[in-house]
């Protein structure tokens, strides 16, 4: 039982990391209906910018703020060069555009910062911690705390600030939002910026875990089942989906893995996602319309 709980908890903590990547997707999807395939590249680009700066002797917080500035500049450029010209094209066109964008961002990262694998040390050891007889990774706990902090900040912003309410207004009804003078380009710049910052945080946590390298972009593929399970338009869904994927993945690895002689965690999440597609295509928290009939 103790063993089971340990596995479950470490799975949940790993799931937090998936959720972080998924949240970046959800933000952009909600506010602009764009499925942003470049989210993974943004994670890589942000983390790479950050380590490159620190390796050149820039202190932690200065590097962090500089990277935030870079991500915001990136959002402004993307809005101007990609989103605005394609404003009322089909979702498929926009998806293809973000696919192209992901190659551009990765190419740029490679060009500017090379392809080496960088070690990233956030100063938190990945040591197991014994809490009430459960073996938990100190780093995972730290990552969870960061994720919880991020979610709290985002929900306060969305519920209390003008910008947050305007973003949700656009997510609910684009034309109605325009009818009261909300400017879509401004909204897009803001969500892409926020997504860029979320990507930076996710990139730092992932990068500290497995090194900052090009394979970071692959977490976009891990975020996919999370989004299918949680629903594309809900931050709560991204979190629950992430936790569910993390937990079932690590449990399956231990309890099903030996039966099939292999690492189950590589594909288990996708099987789970397909199951959800069959049973609940809109995901756990998918777009349920609020309506009075």
């Amino acid at each position, binding site marked *: 039982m103790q063993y089971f709980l340990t596995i479950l908890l470490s799975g949940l903590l790993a799931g937090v990391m998936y959720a972080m990547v998924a949240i970046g997707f959800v933000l952009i999807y909600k506010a602009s209906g764009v499925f942003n395939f470049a989210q993974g590249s943004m994670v890589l680009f942000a983390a790479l910018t950050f380590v490159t700066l620190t390796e050149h002797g820039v202190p932690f917080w200065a590097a962090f703020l500089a990277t935030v500035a870079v991500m915001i500049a990136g959002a402004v450029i993307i809005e101007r060069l990609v989103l605005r010209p394609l404003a009322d094209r089909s979702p498929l066109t926009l998806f293809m555009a973000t696919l192209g964008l992901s190659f551009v961002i990765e190419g740029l990262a490679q060009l500017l910062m090379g392809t080496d694998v960088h070690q990233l040390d956030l100063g938190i050891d990945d040591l197991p911690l014994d809490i009430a007889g459960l073996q938990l990774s100190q780093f995972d706990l730290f990552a969870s705390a960061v994720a919880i902090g991020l979610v709290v900040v985002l929900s306060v912003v969305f519920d209390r600030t003008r910008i947050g309410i305007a973003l949700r207004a656009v997510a609910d*009804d684009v034309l109605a939002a*325009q009818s009261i*003078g909300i400017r879509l380009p401004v909204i897009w710049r803001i969500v892409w910026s926020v997504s860029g910052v979320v990507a930076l945080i996710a990139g730092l946590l992932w990068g500290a875990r497995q090194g900052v390298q090009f394979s970071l972009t692959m977490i976009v593929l891990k975020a996919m089942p999370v989004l299918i399970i949680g629903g594309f338009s809900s931050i709560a869904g991204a979190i629950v989906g992430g936790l569910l994927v993390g937990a079932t993945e690590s449990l399956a690895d231990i309890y099903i893995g030996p039966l099939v002689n292999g690492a189950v965690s590589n594909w288990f999440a996708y099987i789970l996602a397909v199951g959800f597609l069959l049973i609940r295509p809109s995901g756990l928290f998918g777009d349920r*319309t609020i309506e009075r009939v």
Partner: protein
Amino acid sequence: MMTTAAPILAVDNVHVIYGQSILALRGITLRVNEGSIVALLGANGAGKTTTLKAISSLVRAERGRVAQGEIRFRGDIITHADAAGLVRRGIVQVLEGRRCFAHLTVEQNIVAGGYAHRPSRRVLADDLDRVYTWFPRLKQRRRTAAGLNSGGEQQMIAIGRALMTRPKLMLLDEPSMGLAPMLVEEIFEIIRNLNRREGVSFLLAEQNTGFALRYADHAYVVENGQVSAHGTAADLAARTDMASLYLGAIATD
């Protein structure tokens, strides 16, 4: 039929094309005098909504454009102005079907209407209070999700949200749609009072000819993207015996 008061809105020979080829308006011409209520009547698909959207520039959000003609607001040409800029200048459209932000609370919906002017917190709070004075019922429901309110309440939310932009001219698209006659009456009374006490001019598209003509000063009948008749509301109301000639299906209402 022309009066001497200065028009707040002048639409001249406006043609609107959606996409590459759908010609929805074929030369609409109309006037809204400062401080008046003007009704835009016509059957389904006649072009009422498109006319309003051409004025507010929201046609462009639907891949439409004004291909020909001119629109003036208080003398300034606004034919190709951007929608957000027009809201700041005092033109606001309340969309057909109310279109509240369903997941936001009633209060968040209304407050969102105030953002365009970047007001201070105090101004925003004062404006919100003013809207609640017009719609006391919304104050009681302020914390509920807008989508859970009744059709009448949602229409009030939509109008209240638009009032937050401090409009000079309000474009109302079918405010009576789907509402019981008593509620329609209530909404139109509020429109009349807003017009008299706050000096807001109205251009309202309606299929409910009876109500519209009771409250409007002037009316235009749109058919096939053109104005087929216009005059004072009283004149047009007197001609309802020949309504079938120009109002199409509405005559059977």
